[in-house]
């Protein structure tokens, strides 16, 4: 999809519009999109500074302006100290930020990020995620961010689009999609799910009750296993008809119930829970 927006590939059907202007037949170089490739595609024979300057140089901007602008960008993405190095001498995170600066240099109307953190280790990824959000507040440019990491998507995006096998499943805010998924795919894609009463539910939307305060709708179950995962506690259950489910409890709640394997409990759905919207497919 990013390649179609950038103009590197042609859509089978439909049009590409940016700021209300039809871009479908505009050549790549005139679209003014900033594309960060998955593997960054650094110009290996150019220094970091020349990489970032490339877009401005081909636009024949005056040299002092290019210099000033590149300095600003390098400062912005915090790689000014490696400006004279070649891409091969950078760490993965630095290369990633250089690619971003290079794409931003042309003041794009849309910024396209193709799994920008895919090749980085988890810690660097977390850092860059926060940094990217911050950066975004400073430069305010529409950004399309492709990722396979739903947590990353929820953390970064204002609007999420879930694509499955090339089909757009749902578009909406992260909260919207999480709480009102259009279908089971979206529901299970955005977070853990378990089956209860023949319906997919989020494990944290299953409430485990002791004998005393159980609601009428609750079903009896046997605790099979209790796993402590830090803040949360995972409780594997065997329901009365033999089907398995699991619930996610806070540590406090689990301690209150003092659950252990073999306990008989009652399980019900939370009142406020994620349900698949029935209106659309």
């Amino acid at each position, binding site marked *: 999809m990013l390649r179609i927006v950038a103009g590197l590939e042609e859509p089978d059907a439909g049009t590409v519009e940016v700021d209300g202007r039809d871009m479908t037949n505009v050549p790549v170089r005139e679209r003014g999109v900033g*594309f960060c490739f998955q593997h960054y595609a650094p110009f290996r024979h150019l220094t970091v500074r020349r990489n970032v300057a490339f*877009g401005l140089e081909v636009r024949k901007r005056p040299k002092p302006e290019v210099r000033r602008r590149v300095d600003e960008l390098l400062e912005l993405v915090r790689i000014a100290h490696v400006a004279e190095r070649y891409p091969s001498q950078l760490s993965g995170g630095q290369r990633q930020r250089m690619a971003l600066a290079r794409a931003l240099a042309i003041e794009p109307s849309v910024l396209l990020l193709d799994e920008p953190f895919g090749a980085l280790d988890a810690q660097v990824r977390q850092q860059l995620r926060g940094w990217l959000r911050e950066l975004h507040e400073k430069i305010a440019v529409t950004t399309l961010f492709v990722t396979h990491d739903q947590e990353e998507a929820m953390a970064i995006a204002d609007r999420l689009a879930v694509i499955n096998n090339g089909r757009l499943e749902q578009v909406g805010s992260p909260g919207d999609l999480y709480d009102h998924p259009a279908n089971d795919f979206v529901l299970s894609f955005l977070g853990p799910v378990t089956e209860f009463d023949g319906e997919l539910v989020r494990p944290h939307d299953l409430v485990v009750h002791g004998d005393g305060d159980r609601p009428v709708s609750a079903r009896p179950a046997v605790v099979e296993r209790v796993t402590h995962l830090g803040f949360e506690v995972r409780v594997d259950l065997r329901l009365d008809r033999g089907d398995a489910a699991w619930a996610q409890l806070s540590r406090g709640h689990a301690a209150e119930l003092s659950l252990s394997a073999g306990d008989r409990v009652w399980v019900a759905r939370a009142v406020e829970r994620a349900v698949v919207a029935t209106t659309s497919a």
Partner: protein
Amino acid sequence: MRRRIVLRGVVLVYVSLLVTVPVGSVFYRAFDRGVAAAWDAVTSPPGLHALWLTVIVAAIAVPLDAVFGVGVALIVSRHRFPGVFLLDALVDIPLALSPVVVGLSLVLVYGVTGWFGRTLAGWGIQVIFSLPGIVMACAAVALPYVVREVLPVLEEIGTDQEQAAATLGARPFTVFRRITLPSIRAGLAYGVTLTTARVLGEFGAVSIVSGNIEGRTQTLTLFIQDSINNLNPVGAYAGSVLLAVLAFCVLGILGTDPKKRRLSWRSTSATSPSSLGTLLPSMASASVSQQDR
């Protein structure tokens, strides 16, 4: 340890027997009757003309092969259309065929009675037995080198950088000049080196198409053969030395930058033997004809 010494010895002896001793003896024999005799031989009018013609042919054929070689490599690596593999295979034909066959096929097509030759003759352009024919023969024979050096580099670097440059606003030609060309520079330089060495030393194809007219269509390799045929060994050896010096100069200018050579996809050690290899056939065929007498 001992085995390694034996291996080194075998390799050294092999290279000596094939390259060092024969080439060295050519140098030795060239100056056998004094430097003056050798100097006179190559500065005779036919000798000077042969040198001049060889340089001119290389000056035209090598840039042609460089431009079209890069073009073919770009098409094969960047375009997907049915038959592109055929183009890839066609490039190797001059390597697979004997140069004599390449020369003969050019005569068939561009000779006065050939398909294109008749038309061209009508326009007053003579290809065979003339400079254009020699250039074409050399360009045809040496075409694969640039393609074979540049193609793997293009495939290895992929199209990411070129696409990135396009999204940044670069026109196709700017992308080529500022991104593609710098990336393939090392391979291209090496390919041009091989091409030049091959063009300078080409004998078989040139001897067919040139007609070997002394002072007009005689290149250095033909001059050497002619000298042998005319029982003028000093001329032959001096011409050989001149050819060798010319080839070494090319290697020296194009092929010795260690940084560029390291970047080349092929191992650096191939440089000198292969260029000598392109020199040797001309000398070998020259000495064969000597024995015929």
